[in-house]
């Protein structure tokens, strides 16, 4: 029995642990907090180890681990994740309207001042996105995953990934503008 257990541990370390960077980055950007991210990664690996027997060898282990982490995250932050579904699309609609107005305004968004934002402020802007949009932005724009990989991770069609990414980036652009305005950076532009 002990030999079996040791074998399981070795197989798990060999196959699952190499993906800890991916999980850690996702956890870090989702929680925007190092301690919470570490807890989430550790919880994910413990659960994965516990259910290692249910993992089908040869399938996408990164997607499997990611889904365990996503479920762990949802369980921890259930309230936060549940509520956006109702309001997200209103937010997006408003944002489209706002962006449209901005576009007609010569003093529109503050892209030229984004470069002066601190990394923490950029991370904070991402952390402020609704969870579903934040997830695709993190996976595509920080982790560098392809749409196909993200679709596999999230078990959704490619079109959904693309639309969420588009909307997520729109929201992020608005959040960054808000940070820039808050810091008074728009003054430099005028």
């Amino acid at each position, binding site marked *: *029995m*002990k030999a*079996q*257990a*040791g074998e*399981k*541990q070795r197989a*798990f*370390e060999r196959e699952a*642990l190499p993906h*800890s*960077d991916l*999980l*850690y*980055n996702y956890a*870090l*950007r989702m929680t925007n907090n190092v301690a919470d991210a*570490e*807890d989430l*990664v*550790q*919880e994910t*690996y*413990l659960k994965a*180890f*516990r259910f290692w027997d249910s993992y089908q060898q040869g399938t996408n282990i990164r997607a499997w681990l990611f889904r365990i982490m996503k479920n762990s995250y949802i369980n921890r932050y259930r309230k936060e994740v549940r509520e956006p579904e109702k309001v997200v699309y209103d937010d997006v609609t408003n944002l489209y309207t706002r*962006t*449209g107005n*901005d*576009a*007609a305004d010569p003093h*529109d*968004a503050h*892209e030229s001042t*984004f*470069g002066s*934002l601190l*990394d923490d402020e*950029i*991370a904070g802007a*991402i952390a402020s996105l609704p969870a579903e949009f934040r997830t695709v*932005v993190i996976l*595509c*724009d*920080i*982790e*560098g995953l392809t*749409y196909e990989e993200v679709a596999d991770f999230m078990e959704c069609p490619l079109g959904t990934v*693309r*639309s969420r*990414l*588009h909307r997520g*980036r*729109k929201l*992020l*652009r608005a959040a*960054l503008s808000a940070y820039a305005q808050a810091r008074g950076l728009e003054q430099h532009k005028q």
Partner: protein
Amino acid sequence: MNCREFQENVTAAVDSRLDENVMAVFLAHAAGCTPCRRDYEGERHVVNLVRTRLRPVGVPPELVAAILDCIALEDAAASAVAPRAPSFRWNHVWTKTAVAFALSFAAVVFLLARNDAAFTPMPPSDQTGSDIISQSVNAYHAALKGEIPPQIVSEVPDCVKSFFNGKTEFPVLVPSMKECTLVGGGINDFRGTMMAHIVYKHGGQTISVYQACRETVMKGEKLHLPREALEELARTGWYCCTTPEGASIVVWTKGATLCAAVAPMNREHLMAHLVDGGDAGAW
């Protein structure tokens, strides 16, 4: 390409996922439509900013080490064969003993509370947490105040031990401890999981040892240990910490049981009592 079709293709264009012909049409529209062009440039700018400023970071090596330790601990726990708990019988001789001693325990608790009066309770905010360390400290104070009813009073370890037979999913440990007198113990339900507590007396000081199912705590669902405690436990087999009032808490595991000792003394003294038990190695 109209504005709506342009908007549908912005993200794919930013990520270079449009084929050459579509991209040419896309760019032609952008050249002639200022709002669409600004949207495209805006999204490109945001993506470039994120990609250049928030690069992926490596997982901290300490975290990997902690994960490995936890997995090893989990693996060891899974491979251990837990003894099957016998069914509980109300007419058991030690149960009768427990009932006989129940009333006298109230008096003992009163004495314990007097002797440890200087050991003030943890802040109320910890009282609802599932952290087993906070729970142990809170349960300690509750026992001193008589809020947790005593269920068995005996100086005989086997008597106390048999009281728990069939009541917990883990073996309750009741060894002798050097220079300490066994007082008794009890059991309480925390969110559907059982915790046993064994009380010893050393002079005027009380040592309480709380016990829970190791697997339940490791799963972290109803009861959990802070991450630093898990790491230290995996690394050394023990975890020690001190409350703001100076009381010590020592956590360790034995088989399927996780133990947390609480006492108003420094950790060296507490460890000495635990390690130098009369029946050495029982803990």
